[in-house]
């Protein structure tokens, strides 16, 4: 079953196309890695897909979620889909959490909003979610402020927020880039487990092929706003056809990471 279908998506800023005719399909349970260098339009593709491109961007093309075209929908109509069908995890756990709000409330807010649980039940559910993302002592953690947590812990909270509405698709936008290597591995393992357990589809965005290789089954390579190559992970890794892919592969082989599939 097709979950998200992006067709000829183009995002322009003042006439300049930053995302240029991107087409991608994600089926239920699918795991697509979207790779590309900085500025290739990866994040913008993901944001435009949930209707959150910046105000001054001109978005054309079609984005169908569960067969329904999202482009041109009003915020009010999009709101229940955001978080409810599609959860997003951000790159910077430092800035993606409100510094003045206890993390328990930051999780409970979306739970209350998206599931209709009352506040008390939402608070309980928030603690469960904090436990599900592997935070130790979740009841105490729920009372902590973001500055009292480590980067990895903050990113776990970010994932808990993305899971609040029990989405069918999880978009992870460079979720490990701001973290050190050991924490990266933990977060990747966590995402891997959660996507399996909860039967979610995953759109994983990264500039780092090694990271994508750990969680994705298919990859699409983005360069200058266009999809240059798309296919099963192994095929793209072993028989790259595009220069952009080859450049990413060279960077990847130069790194010391030992991939899980080798």
């Amino acid at each position, binding site marked *: 079953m097709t979950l998200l279908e992006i067709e000829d998506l183009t995002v322009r800023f003042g006439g300049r196309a930053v995302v240029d005719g991107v087409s991608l399909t994600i089926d239920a349970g699918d795991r697509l890695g979207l790779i590309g260098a900085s500025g290739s339009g990866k994040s913008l593709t993901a944001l435009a897909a949930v209707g959150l491109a910046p105000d001054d961007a001109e978005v054309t093309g079609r984005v169908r979620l569960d067969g329904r075209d999202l482009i041109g929908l009003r*915020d009010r109509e999009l709101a229940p889909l955001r978080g409810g069908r599609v959860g997003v995890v951000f790159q910077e756990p430092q800035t993606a959490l409100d510094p003045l709000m206890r993390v328990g409330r930051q999780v409970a807010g979306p739970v209350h909003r*998206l599931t209709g649980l009352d506040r008390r039940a939402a608070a309980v559910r928030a603690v469960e979610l904090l436990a599900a993302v592997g935070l130790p002592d979740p009841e105490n953690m729920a009372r902590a402020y973001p500055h009292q*947590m480590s980067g990895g812990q903050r990113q776990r909270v970010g994932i808990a927020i993305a899971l609040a509405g029990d989405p069918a698709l999880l978009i992870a936008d460079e979720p490990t880039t701001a973290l050190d290597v050991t924490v990266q591995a933990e977060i990747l393992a966590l995402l891997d487990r959660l996507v399996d357990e909860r039967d979610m589809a995953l759109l994983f965005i990264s500039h780092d092929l090694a990271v994508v290789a750990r969680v994705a089954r298919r990859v699409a390579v983005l360069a200058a706003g266009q999809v240059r190559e798309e296919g099963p992970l192994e095929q793209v890794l072993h028989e790259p056809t595009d220069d952009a892919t080859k450049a990413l592969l060279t960077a990847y082989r130069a790194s010391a990471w030992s991939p899980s599939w080798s």
Partner: protein
Amino acid sequence: MSELASESSVLRTFRALLREPAGLIGTVLISLLVLCALVSLVWTPYDPTLVDPAAVWAPPFSGGRLLGTDGSGRDLFSQLLAGAQITTVAAVAATVVSGIVGIGLAVLAAVGRRSGEIVARLIDVLVALPTLLLAMVLSAVYGGSVLTAVVAIGIGTGVNVARVGRAEMTSALGTDYVLAARTSGASTAWIVRRHVLPNVAPVLLVQLSLTLALAVLAEAALSYLGFGTAPPTPSWGRMLQDLQVYVTVHPWAVVWPGAAITAAVLGFSLVGDALRDVTDPRLRRQAAAAPEVLA
């Protein structure tokens, strides 16, 4: 739980405020002002409006007249105490109006796309309009009264709050956590209430405490010019105006209202400045990060 947290952070800010010399002096001055206003409600040495022909221009510290009397024999100390009422009430009321106008306009200007731009231009135009002029126009139309002065001062200072508030809110709306909230389906109203307002509150608080100082000054200026408090009610601005003509003959008399206005304005300004220092996020983060790191 959240109420407790915000209360303790208010207490913490207040304690930090008292550690600053400027904050301490300002707090003492404001306390004095409020104390004068409260005491005058139940007690003044003499009726502040009582004319006593037997005691015209009594010098200070003579015959039970702590600060002397004016040309009609009215007790200056009593007038000063009673004048604190109008100063306090007008300053607080004008600041409340200022807060409502300022925060309201700032939210509209920051949130709307095209309409926000229009509101922002409106704010710019209103900022250019002098508060006192606005007050005089309103007084000319609706008659001089404390209410007119409060509304005019509230609007005049409110647009300045709005200008600062809009800039702060726009940058808060551009943060990742607001984007994150939107990806989890949060409405604009929810984002403004839960994320934007708490995060810009320190800046607004500083603006509003400085507005209190401006409001004291503006109320005195309006009364001085005859557009504020109507005659029987004692007011520092009008005392200043009444007494200034005798400055060469009875110089001490005019000093009291002048000093009172100065002290009140200084008190609110000092607290505003100190508040800005203690709520500066760069300083606050250092203080907050140190004590209780869970990780």
